[in-house]
């Protein structure tokens, strides 16, 4: 009843005392934020815009230094440099293998930490924290010391091992965060209905923590494909995409690098937009 009368009542005009000085100051403040924000966004995007634009550069020599006109040739010739293509393929397969291993191991650790209270869980958390907090140079140098001392040749598989080592903790932390929010009685309900631990895991727990697992896996993949420092210590003669770009940056980066960078960038953006849209749809 009270609600109805309120709806019918016309809105009262509110008298506002004019405060001229305050309003002028507020207008200035209103401009400062967006101007600074957009300047920073511009600054952050500058090298990316340059990378994309110079992927369309009609270079004459081997190097991509001056703007010489628009062409799509570099896109047709993306795989024109064999050593660069090999480096990209190496990076992609290493990232796939390392992500698979790190996701399985990290998910198990994250489940244990998110679901159970057990003796020693604190030390596991500390181990994860130390692993994430340790400087990359030190992680790389320590692994190299071990491989040198034990006379293990470095190459493809030592890179995979290193990548699992530094991305596992990120997966574990992401999955744990998801696991904490899940009602343990769902698990018990599945058990009461006669499901064994394995069926319970695949039919109940895993679907529930799947967003966390996927986010962790994406993070692991991104970390792996982007890593330079730890890889450079443990690569031996194997060349990954970042190692190739680093080597080329001293002499001049071929336009194919710009093209591959642009394509990886576009792929990452598409995945992010897809994730963004699907998470928004889930909320609604």
């Amino acid at each position, binding site marked *: 009843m009270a609600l109805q009368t309120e709806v019918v009542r016309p809105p009262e005009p509110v008298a506002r005392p004019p405060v001229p000085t305050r309003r002028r100051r507020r207008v200035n403040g209103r401009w400062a934020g967006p101007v600074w924000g957009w300047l920073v*966004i511009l600054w952050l995007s500058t090298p990316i815009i340059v990378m994309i634009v110079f992927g369309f550069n009609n270079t004459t020599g081997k190097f991509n230094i001056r703007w010489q006109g628009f062409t799509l040739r570099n896109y047709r010739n993306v795989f024109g440099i064999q050593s660069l293509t090999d480096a990209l393929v190496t990076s992609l397969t290493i990232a796939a293998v390392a992500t698979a291993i790190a996701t399985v191991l990290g998910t198990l650790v994250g489940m244990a*930490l998110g679901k159970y209270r057990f003796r020693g869980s604190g030390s596991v958390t500390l181990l994860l924290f130390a692993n994430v907090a340790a400087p990359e*140079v030190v992680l790389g140098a320590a692994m190299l010391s071990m491989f040198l001392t034990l006379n293990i040749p470095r190459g493809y598989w030592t890179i995979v091992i*290193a990548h699992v080592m530094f991305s*596992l*903790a990120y997966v574990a932390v992401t999955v744990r965060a998801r696991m904490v929010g899940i009602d343990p009685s769902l698990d018990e309900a599945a058990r009461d209905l006669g499901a064994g631990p394995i069926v319970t895991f695949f039919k109940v727990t895993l679907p529930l923590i799947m967003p966390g697992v996927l986010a962790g896996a994406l993070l692991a993949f991104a970390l792996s494909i982007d890593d330079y420092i730890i890889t450079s210590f443990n690569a031996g003669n194997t060349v990954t995409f970042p190692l190739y770009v680093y080597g080329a940056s001293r002499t001049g980066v071929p336009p194919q690098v710009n093209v591959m960078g642009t394509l990886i960038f576009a792929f990452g953006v598409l995945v992010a937009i897809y994730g963004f849209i699907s998470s928004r749809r889930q909320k609604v």
Partner: protein
Amino acid sequence: MTATTTAPPVAPPPPAAARARRRSVRMRTLAPYWLVLPGWLWLAIFFVVPIVIMLSVSTMTGNIQDGFKQTFHWSNYSDAWSQYHVQFVRSLVYGAIATALCIVIGYPVAYWIAFRGGAHKSSLLFLLLLPFFVSFVIRTSSWNFILSDNGMVVSRLKDWGWVGQNFHILQTPFAVIGGLTYNFIPFMILPIYVALERVDPALLEASADLYANKATAFLRVVLPLSIPGVFAGVLLTFVPVSSDYVNASILGGSKGTTMIGNIIQTQYFTNLNYPSAAAISFILMAILLVGVFLYARLLGTEEVLEAAGN
């Protein structure tokens, strides 16, 4: 009394069922250990053991031809420090300057998005993070390309006569610190944004009702509430910045900008002096990890980790 004592004891459950139940209880208490075991082993073998081996290598003597022998030669540490303290100090100074720049540049942006972003908050944040979908090395080498001596910026400035003919940006501390700030600023903006986003706008209205002007409201209400975000950002930025060597070698490259990461790399791959390299790595890790733990303890681990986790 007598009735209870003389009453026959409750029949024990059949032994097989008891064993099964006991086993299932034991399985359940052991379950977290089985889950943690594989990941724990991986980290133990490829993270903890290498660091122990590196500690052992750091006190060896010898050379690459005759091999290295364990002689507990602890003066590798003092030698490393006296030889490379300039680079250690430079790395920490660059790290501090770049971290401070990240706060100064990033805080207003985080504030703008959190309080003025309105419906576009996520889009603005996405736009801000977009560049970081590109590989770290490509981003850095793109700056090298932009700022190079005959590149688009410097040659233009020379044509306009704004700078002298031997002016250059690369190979200066300015370029290296700029690159470091650029590459690590999202690790500062994100935690600050998360902290600011949690600030209830009603608190600002309340402070305005209590006659606080905008500056006072910011200093007394918003800033204290966002400090955990800044602390987390510093934690996430300072360690990778001061141990980085990619920026120093792509954008710096001259002697005056060498950071300690470059020295570690040179000792391993050019000088093949593994004990010295191990000792330097250990000093670096000790400085940074002790710093991180003191920092976390001083400011409350919970708060910093919580903010970092978000």
